[in-house]
């Protein structure tokens, strides 16, 4: 297990290096002169020259890449062109808002989705199963930004149960502000996870070892909860790990709808102002999150499934 962990994180590091390189080259491949875009048409040649030197744009591309890697190793993602603040500071100031929103979305949608899916699988083809199926599919079909807007109109504007914008102060204030955004992000996940758990649960319930458990008079409740569910949630763990990418992209919309600070808001703002160091830093951190979450999902899978543990 230890060797597997080390290997898995080495792989994650490798993926990150490849991703950073690709991203760096892609941004440099965009036609046009970044300096004139950043400084505008009326910049003096001296100003341009100093920025070119500061960003090392006069160096060959491989040298620029090495300089960027060098900065990365020191924890330096460059300087915000406009405010002059360090990109690392900016990104890590915004990151917690996005992380808490995504974490809450995943937790509530996974809990509800797994419960719904397991119940449907334990009572297949009943009314509840059919209703759950219909509801799940409509949840999956609803994009996060549509749900966000509707939730905003209904629960914040009409009913005034929850605040419409901002992030709030203190634990309860922040939690209160998180309800609607994480509802919007999590809703389609509830449906998706419920469908997934139902399918994988039905498959597991048809396996020989479940018949054994029944043949020994073990209660159906125990069979579902500790014999079948543990196997049935394995694919869910993987899907949530990989789904981190989708969560981050739905965070972009949700943060704009609810006017919340966060990674999504940051990346949109910096793209519209051509603030390349910040774009680069934000995308890098998002990629890092994605790579980390898939690695964690793989490790969790290995932890839950002894077969995977011993073969890896």
């Amino acid at each position, binding site marked *: 297990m230890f060797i597997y962990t080390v290997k898995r994180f080495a792989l994650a590091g490798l993926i990150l290096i490849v991703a950073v390189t690709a991203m760096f080259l892609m941004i440099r491949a965009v036609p046009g002169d970044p300096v004139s875009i950043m400084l505008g048409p009326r910049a003096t040649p001296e100003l341009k020259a100093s920025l070119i030197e500061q960003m090392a744009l006069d160096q060959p591309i491989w040298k620029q890449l090495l300089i960027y890697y060098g900065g990365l190793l020191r924890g330096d993602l460059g300087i915000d062109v406009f405010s002059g603040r360090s990109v690392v500071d900016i990104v890590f100031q915004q990151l917690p808002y996005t992380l808490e929103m995504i974490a809450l979305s995943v937790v509530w949608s996974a809990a509800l989705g797994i419960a719904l899916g397991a119940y449907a699988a334990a009572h297949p083809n009943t009314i509840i199963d059919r209703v759950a199926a219909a509801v799940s599919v409509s949840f999956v079909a609803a994009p996060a930004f549509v749900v966000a807007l509707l939730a905003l109109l209904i629960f914040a504007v009409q009913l005034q149960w929850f605040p419409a914008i901002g992030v709030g102060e203190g634990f309860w204030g922040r939690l209160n502000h998180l309800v609607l955004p994480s509802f919007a992000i999590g809703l389609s996940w509830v449906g998706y996870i419920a469908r997934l758990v139902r399918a994988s649960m039905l498959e597991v319930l048809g*396996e*020989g*070892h479940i*018949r*054994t*458990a*029944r*043949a*020994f*008079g*073990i*209660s159906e409740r*125990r069979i579902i909860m*500790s*014999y079948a569910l*543990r*196997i049935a949630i394995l694919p869910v763990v993987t899907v949530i790990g990989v789904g981190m990418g989708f969560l981050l992209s739905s965070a972009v919309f949700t943060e704009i709808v609810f006017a919340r600070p966060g990674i999504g808001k940051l990346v949109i703002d910096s793209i519209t102002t051509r603030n390349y160091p910040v774009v680069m830093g934000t995308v890098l951190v998002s990629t890092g999150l994605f790579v980390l979450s898939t690695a964690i999902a793989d490790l969790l899978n290995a932890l*839950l*499934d*002894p*077969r995977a543990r*011993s073969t890896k």
Partner: protein
Amino acid sequence: MSDTLLEIDNLSVDYETERGDLKALRDISFDVKKGEIVGIVGESGCGKSTLISSILRLTAPNTRFRQGEVRFNGDDILAMTERQMRDLRGSDISIVFQDPMQTHNPVLTIGRQLLDIQHRSKATTAQKLETAAKMLAAVGIPDPQARLKQYPHEFSGGMRQRIAIAMALMSEPDLLIADEPTTALDATLEVQIIERLKELQSEMNCAILFISHHLGVIAELCDRVVVMYAGAVVESGDVREIFHDPKHPYTRRLIECDPGHIKTRARILPTIPGEVPDLVNLPDGCIFRDRCEQAFDKCQQVPALDKLKEGHFAACWLNHPEETTA
């Protein structure tokens, strides 16, 4: 109190399918006495699996019990509540399944699973684990204490089947159902496991319903044999009677086709020509008629399972000389 443990009386079971009712079991009757080993022989699809899942009432949702009773210690299993049924499973009746690679939960340790099946016991966890280790030792698993901490995939197929037998015998059941327990294993393991099963049976004196298509194993292990064909019992009786004086053409062909019985070198192994009839659209008359070389006019009627002598029953018109000459 009679000495009969399990009585199956005119049991008929259908599966509802889109093509119509599949008549998986028709008019099955036989019994198992206390401490007796009864073998059930028949080709794949003859209804052996339906029969054992009916006894444990672990049948598929499209199963319909059309008629008959399954009595265990005098009580009709088919009339029991699910609660009563659960009390029976794994305590008075237990089962060893065919494929040892599928029997155990892959994500729980063997110890956990052996612990869970003792859910009726009032003993402490430590005592239960002690019992589990003792049972593993009894079926011939070395170092049982350490192996309790391992997962199923860390055991070989033979080991897993031993564990399955240990699980089944843990509650000292009155009836052990063994569903082709050695089919998935190689021949040397088969002998070892059969030997061990026989030893444990004589220690615990439980009855065994042993399903197999391996005639050699049946002859070695069983007291009595029930021969099934296409969902019906065609012959039943004492194991010696059946093997030395079979009274049904199907039994005779089955014995002839057993590789263990072939004395002379042959280029082609003997088979029974023809196919098992479609159980949705049953043919008229004797179910074996289409494949029987000795079929005659009378076979257009269904023969009853007649008592030929004490402890030997067969369903064939050939055993009625007055009909053959008529």
